[in-house]
């Protein structure tokens, strides 16, 4: 696992630690490229592909954040379930070659970009400027601890998750149900 | 509820019975023939394309009566003969079988009253050229005699 | 017996031909008379009417010739008697300048009865009414007959070439068709 003590000297590129750093950089690149595709590509299916790439990258980030469990859950839920659902919906609902160019205002692109840049930049500046205090850990955050906490201190969250999912399933069924003629 | 489990059970059993059958077959010897490496001999009555029958003197039995030509439904036989001076019978000079059109029905052999035609036992005829299947039966007869 | 019943129904449909001698025949004599009768038929075209034929010779029991306008009624008779459709075909009688459309019907029953309904139309303008409204299965048979003989089935829902190429405008089974 990732050691929490900061490494004093920067590692050489071809040392073991250096390679770990390279892999982290790859993960960042994967995340950003994936996100870029997801919000920019014209075809929705490609956007889903971008989303998958992005989420695999995010899962990698989680792995670097000492949490393989959440990383795997990320892949399982987002790639295995959400992305599949979205692409399923695209196949069901989106007619091929559905492109209506120029319907919306031409300003929407720059405006969107401006807003996004402002928000992202603001957050980044805020993050860099703030001094985040490090507090000593009281446990190791292992999956066992997650399980115990989830069923004791955070049982409310657990219950909420189950209720939300149940409602979502039923709601989805009710909304999308189409009576088959004949 | 009972039928639900009964269905599952009987379904599973039927699957295992099927698997037993294929399992037994697995250990039985193979039945196929590895074609280019092994071949079968054709049965006696196998109807291949026709060949001329020769008489004892090595001449074809054919008397150029043309019955086979007329009997052929796809008109794939052309034959010609000459009548040499002083002979009773005609002598065959040309017997062409256009195998590209032949449907191996055997009408020619059946129509022949002079025991001049027989079926060959050749079955793996293949070529990329059409001309290869225009057989000159007289030539083939000579080739066989060599 | 279904033969009698069907025959009666046909006779009701074709009353005009009823009194004529060939309509009712003694099956026993027919075998001997076969050859002579055929020769006769050739000379003078057969009148509309129903004949009971010898099954052993011809392979069918009833032979009804109707006018094209009576066709629907005739087919309704066999439909009500629960016949199934065997086939529809044509015969080109080029010498007489006519095309005959032949409908074969039979029964699933052990009370066997094969009925042939024929109708003759002019060769120049062969039009008969469709029976697809009665027998859905006549659809392809009629399309096929249209392909081969150029007979138009009036009211057919989808009369395009079935067996011949889509753009075929020839009718190969006409006697004057030379490939």
């Amino acid at each position: 696992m990732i050691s929490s003590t900061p490494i004093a000297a920067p590692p050489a590129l071809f040392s073991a630690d250096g390679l770990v750093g390279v892999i982290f950089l790859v993960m960042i690149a994967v995340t950003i490229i994936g996100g870029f595709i997801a919000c920019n590509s014209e075809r929705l299916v490609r956007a889903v592909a971008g989303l998958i790439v992005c989420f695999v990258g995010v899962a990698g980030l989680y792995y670097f954040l000492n949490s393989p469990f959440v990383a795997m859950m990320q892949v399982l839920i987002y790639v295995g379930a959400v992305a599949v659902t979205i692409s399923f919906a695209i196949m069901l609902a989106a007619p091929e070659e559905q492109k209506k160019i120029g319907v919306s205002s031409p300003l929407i692109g720059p405006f969107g970009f401006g807003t996004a840049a402002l928000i992202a930049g603001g957050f980044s500046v805020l993050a860099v400027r703030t001094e985040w205090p490090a507090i000593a850990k009281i446990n190791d955050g292992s999956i066992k601890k997650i399980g115990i906490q989830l069923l004791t201190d955070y049982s409310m969250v657990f219950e909420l998750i189950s209720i939300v999912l149940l409602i979502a399933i039923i709601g989805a069924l009710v909304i999308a149900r189409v009576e088959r003629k004949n | 509820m009972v039928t639900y489990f009964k269905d599952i059970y009987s379904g599973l059993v039927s699957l295992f019975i099927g698997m037993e059958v294929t399992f037994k077959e697995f250990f039985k010897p193979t039945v196929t023939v590895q074609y280019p490496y092994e071949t079968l001999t054709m049965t006696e009555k196998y109807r291949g394309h026709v060949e001329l029958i020769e008489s004892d003197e090595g001449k074809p039995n054919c008397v150029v009566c043309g019955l086979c030509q007329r009997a052929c439904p796809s008109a794939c036989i052309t034959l010609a003969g000459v009548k040499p001076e002083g002979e009773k019978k005609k002598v065959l000079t040309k017997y062409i079988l256009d195998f590209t059109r032949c449907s191996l029905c055997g009408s020619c052999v059946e129509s022949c009253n002079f025991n001049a035609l027989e079926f060959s036992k050749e079955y793996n005829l293949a070529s990329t050229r059409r001309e290869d299947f225009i057989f000159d039966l007289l030539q083939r007869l000579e080739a066989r005699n060599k | 017996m279904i033969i009698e019943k069907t025959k009666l129904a046909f006779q009701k449909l074709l009353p005009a031909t009823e009194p004529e001698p060939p309509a009712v025949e003694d099956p026993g004599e027919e075998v001997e008379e076969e050859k002579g009768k055929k020769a006769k038929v050739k000379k003078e075209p057969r009148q509309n009417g129903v004949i009971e034929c010898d099954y052993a010779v011809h392979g069918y029991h009833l032979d009804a010739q109707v006018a094209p306008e009576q066709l629907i009624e005739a087919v309704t008779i066999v439909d009500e008697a629960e016949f199934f459709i065997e086939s529809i075909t044509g015969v080109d009688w080029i010498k007489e300048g006519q095309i005959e459309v032949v409908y074969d019907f039979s029964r699933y029953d052990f009370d066997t009865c094969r009925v042939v309904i024929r109708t003759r139309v002019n060769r120049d303008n062969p039009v008969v009414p469709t029976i697809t409204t009665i027998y859905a299965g006549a659809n392809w048979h009629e399309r096929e007959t249209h392909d081969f003989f150029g007979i138009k089935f009036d009211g057919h829902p989808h009369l395009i070439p079935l067996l011949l190429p889509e753009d075929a405008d020839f009718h190969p089974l006409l006697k004057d068709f030379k490939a």
Partner: protein
Amino acid sequence: MSSPIQLQTDETFVLNVGPQHPATHGVLRVKMEMNGEYIVNAETVIGYIHRMHEKMGENKTYPQYLMNLSRMDYLGALGYSHGHVLVVEKAAGIEVPERAEYIRAIMVELNRIASHLFWFGAFVMDLGGFSPLMYALQDREYILDMLEAVTGSRLTYCYFRFGGLYNDIDDDFIDAARRFIPRMRKSLIKYDKLVTGNIIFRKRLEGNALLSKETCRKYGASSAVARGSGINFDVRKNEPYSVYPDFDFDVPVYHEGDSLARYMVRMKEMEQSLRIIEQGLDKLPDGPIMPKKKPKLIKPPAGDYYQAVETARGSFGVRLVSDGTKTPYRLKLRSPTYSNMHLFDESCRGMMIMDALAFMGSLDLVIPEIDR
């Protein structure tokens, strides 16, 4: 009644099954208008290998045309030849020796089993099981070997002649046939275990493509399609021809009308065919295989003749219109699959494509026989 496929709407799309498609066993094309997996409308397009057999019949003499009939259906050729020779014999008044008739019946039944075996294999292969095809082909090869030894060819036999047969059968054949019967019975039990009892197979076919008696009648369906819908119709029983009245056999009839019923009918039919072969071998009389007096040139008297026979695929009819010359004036071939296939357009509506193709498989299609 099939109607032309209209332009597709937003909801539906047109799927072309064939002319080259693994499910169609030949060049058959079905234009299907689909709504997702469901078929809204279907139009069968046939005729890709149409050869105009009927015109050939008008241009050739009777013996010349004889081999054409065995090329109509490459799986059950003998049945079709049988119909043709019977109608010509009937028209020309040729007597057939009894031995020839018996041999004909035996051969036709063997051919029927061969055809059904191939159908069985192909049908199960349509449903995704491949091994039964191979087992079926093994048994079929046995039959083909027997037939080849007698007729000289494996598929397009042209074995029957007007008035008799091309070859007499010998003791080898009789021995082989006698050995074949128990072997085939054992195989049928194997197929029962492997396929018929299989839960996946049954679930797929039970209730699939229900055909009513009325539909069968309106379309003129025959063979297992009709018998699977509770119609007791078999030309061998209803209009006995040849020596079939001498045999004791049953016509399997199932009343469910689904694909499983059609399947069961054919499987039981094989057993009945075995019975016929057994009896035929027992009763086989001695004697010639060709009639003593046979006209040199076959010229049936002018007239209209019809003969129906039960082939492997159903009631096959030949209508011969003779004008007294050596060639037929008109020769109509009523092919059974033509009528059986015609059902498909109407009946497959609203079905899922998997079920429709299982249904198509259960119809036992041989495309050259539809297209003629």
